């Protein structure tokens, strides 16, 4: 009973905050709403007896969002609230494709929900030991593949971040630059 109430509260919160992410004009507020929505999803997991997934959701996503936050704060000027490309209202034409995609997702969710999904109360979701065993035996290939994808992402990020000729100028002592 208590878990049902928790589930519906968290679900409503998740939908509301996620919509606010899209609606709000202030980039920092958007990131904050995103964090709240992730929290709400973590609560949903908790109400479905998956505390491990809930905590991992907070650790992984809160940690990752922090970096996003950093970029937002660095990109916006100190006043933050005004005069940026990101804060302009989108035109009709710009809304067509995202709108169509959102509609498609909504239809998919409704269809899959009405088809009747089994309750996701798997024992492996609450016990990290069981989950670990499952991941590293049955889904071993998937773990490996996602690891490789992450590695590729890191290398790609490093490559793009280095740029072309920047390292050579950075190696120079500061005196050379001032001359």
């Amino acid at each position, binding site marked *: 009973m*208590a878990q049902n109430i928790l589930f519906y509260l968290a679900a409503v919160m998740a939908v509301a905050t996620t919509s606010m992410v899209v609606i709000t004009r202030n980039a*920092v507020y958007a990131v*904050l709403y995103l*964090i709240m929505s992730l929290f709400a999803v973590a609560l949903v997991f908790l109400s479905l007896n998956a*505390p*491990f997934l809930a*905590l*991992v959701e*907070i*650790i992984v996503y*809160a*940690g990752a969002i*922090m*970096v996003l*936050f*950093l970029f937002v*704060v*660095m990109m916006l000027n*100190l*006043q*933050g609230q005004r005069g940026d490309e990101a804060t302009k209202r989108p035109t009709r034409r710009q809304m067509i494709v995202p709108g169509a995609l959102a509609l498609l997702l909504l239809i998919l969710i409704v269809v899959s929900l009405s088809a009747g999904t089994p309750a996701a109360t798997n024992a492996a979701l609450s016990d*990290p*030991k069981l989950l670990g065993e499952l991941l590293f035996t049955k889904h071993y290939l998937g773990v490996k593949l996602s690891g490789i994808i992450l590695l590729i992402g890191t290398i790609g990020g490093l490559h793009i971040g280095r740029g072309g000729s920047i390292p050579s100028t950075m190696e120079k002592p500061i005196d050379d630059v001032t001359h």
Partner: protein
Amino acid sequence: MTGALSNEPLWYQLLIAVIKASVLMGALLGVTGWLVLAERKIIAWLQGRPGPNRAGPMGLFQPVADVLKLLTKEESIPPFVNKILFIAAPAIITITAMVSYAIIPWGPNPVWGAISNLNLGVLLFLALSSLGVYSIVLAGWSSNSKYAVLGGLRATAQMISYELSLSMALLAAVMMAGTLNFQLIVEAQRPFWFILLQPLGFFIFFVSAIAESRRTPFDLPEAENELVAGFHTEYSAMKFALFFLGEYMGVILLSGIMATVYLGGYQGPILPGPVWMILKIAVLFFVFVWIRATYPRFRYDHLMQIGWKWLIPLAVLNLIITAVLCLTFPNLVPNAIH
């Protein structure tokens, strides 16, 4: 999740939790003021000066004077700040630090030993410590002044970087204990404390803990001679005090986690468990202060280099060594997953 109490009615579980939490919070809030005094006294002693000695005998009433001053000062909110976030930021850091105390075990009793004998305690600690960063970055951003923003950015980059090595060092200890429950981690240290089996892990955790709590030599976010006071430049009175409180609670919390994971927690001869915990936390707190009084502040690029080029590779190495140890000497760590 409360384990031993799960058959009792809900109101009873809640009542027990509230009693435990009130006792712990009362003790913590009461003791923090005197910890500040202790820190000032220890630093004074290390630097050969008397330290605060005017309020009461040996300056013992200094915390009372400090708190009265902070409470009666004008609560100023500058006109240029983002009000909601400006007020929320100091609350976030104090709340996340306080909630984390729920999982520290003070004794072997499954009901009264810890506020929440959570099976996923280590994960909850990591989750809450990653949330503390939001307080700093929000304080920096909402203050809308250049020093605050710079301090906030520095703090964020620093805390994200050191959180990695912190969690990886913790992971190695978890590997040896074979559990994420702090009370069981303590029980897994029956023959040897983990500081003997995990000396490198303890070192990595300690250095990362100092960086996580933003204390000297890693106090760049609030370096006063370049950033005024960093992210809390615009804060005054009680809101500033909350940042201060959050920092101290963070230090005691990290000391508590270190005592639990590496120093055998509440284990010890003769004296009861909580006393041993307090003693171990006190020793670790002293080392925190000792380091603060001894080392100068790092340069910012050095700080990042230490984090990314030394601590994280060391932590990975430690993980690998631990995994090999656990597999080759199963008798040494009977609880580890084989």
